[in-house]
């Protein structure tokens, strides 16, 4: 009888230890690192929201996205737009028809940011935006087959740079973006 109690007790103890270990490991797996161990950063630079709402996408669409430039399917940094290349769709949206869709804006954002992902990360971390091809090429700081799509100091440059540097203290230049999006002048 004494032996039976002892083995029952050992069984309960083993189950208890296993449960405790399991709960402990679960908690460890789900909990975050110690405070100060990992520095989490939330950046507002080059944000997808501003890309759409402030019209940064429209600047790229108008300045870079014609069918014979980055709206061409053979070109890198592919840009979709209502006036140029369309994402395949069943809504009857062809070049020159309707508005640029949310999917197309998202595709443009991905196109632009993944052109040089490491450098974009560095810019989001505070590096000089002018290290990026999306500025060097249209400003002709680097050879560009399409020539100077943006002029130094014009609205398009201010818009893109302010988007890449956007934070609470330096908001995106929405006026420049609006002006730059009116291109060609109508």
């Amino acid at each position: 009888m004494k032996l039976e109690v002892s083995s029952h007790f050992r069984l309960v103890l083993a189950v208890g230890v296993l449960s405790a270990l399991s709960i402990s490991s679960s908690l460890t797996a789900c909990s975050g690192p110690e405070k100060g161990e990992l520095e989490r950063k939330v950046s507002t630079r080059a944000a997808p929201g501003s890309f759409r709402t402030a019209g940064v996408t429209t600047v790229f669409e108008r300045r870079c996205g014609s069918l014979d430039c980055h709206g061409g399917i053979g070109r890198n940094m592919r840009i979709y737009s209502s006036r140029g290349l369309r994402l395949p769709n069943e809504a009857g949206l062809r070049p020159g028809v309707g508005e640029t869709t949310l999917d197309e804006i998202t595709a443009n954002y991905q196109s632009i940011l993944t052109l040089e992902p490491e450098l974009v990360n560095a810019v989001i971390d505070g590096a000089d935006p002018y290290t990026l091809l999306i500025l060097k090429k249209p400003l002709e700081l680097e050879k560009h087959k399409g020539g100077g799509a943006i002029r130094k100091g014009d609205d398009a440059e201010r818009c893109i740079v302010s988007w890449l540097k956007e934070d609470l203290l330096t908001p995106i230049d929405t006026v420049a973006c609006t002006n730059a999006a009116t291109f060609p002048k109508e």
Partner: protein
Amino acid sequence: MTRFVTGKRLRTMAVLTGIAIVSCADPVLSDAVEGQGNETSGVEKGEFHRAGQPCGTCHQEGGPAADFPFTVAGTVFAQPMRQVGVEAAEIRMTDADGTKYTAKTNCVGNFFVTPAEWQPKYPILVEVAKNNVRRSMRSAIGRDASCAGCHTPDLEPADPFSQVPHIYLFSGDEPGSPEGAADCKVDPKRVGSP
């Protein structure tokens, strides 16, 4: 001591030189030129040939018509579903520097601008006009000297998401000459057009 180059050696050198020249050619351009097909029967090379095709493919540096390059060239047809050239349509262009140039179509609808006439800085804005009809292009030309680079000569674009139909000025028949200019040396209607 003097060694003479024999005929056999000369031939070998010529062949090698030929291979070197061919291997330096631009294969993309070669394919594009080949893709234009043969000349239309009865239409000689000149201002009336290959209406609706991308002129800049050949008329550019390195192309087979490099001795007569174009900075901008294309064709204006009258209707959306019928390719009859419009004569004397004005192509009004403005480049990135604000300089302007107006070209005029011939009787098959072709127009072309040479570097001596105008060397635009891209992008270019374009409108086409004749009499009281005017049609503006919604987007700018980014860099392609050929209108047909985007405006496919096919009545129905093969890829409707990346190509646009041919340039046309009127929504119906061209007022006064639905068959095109009567005194044109060649048929102003493009081969294959309804």
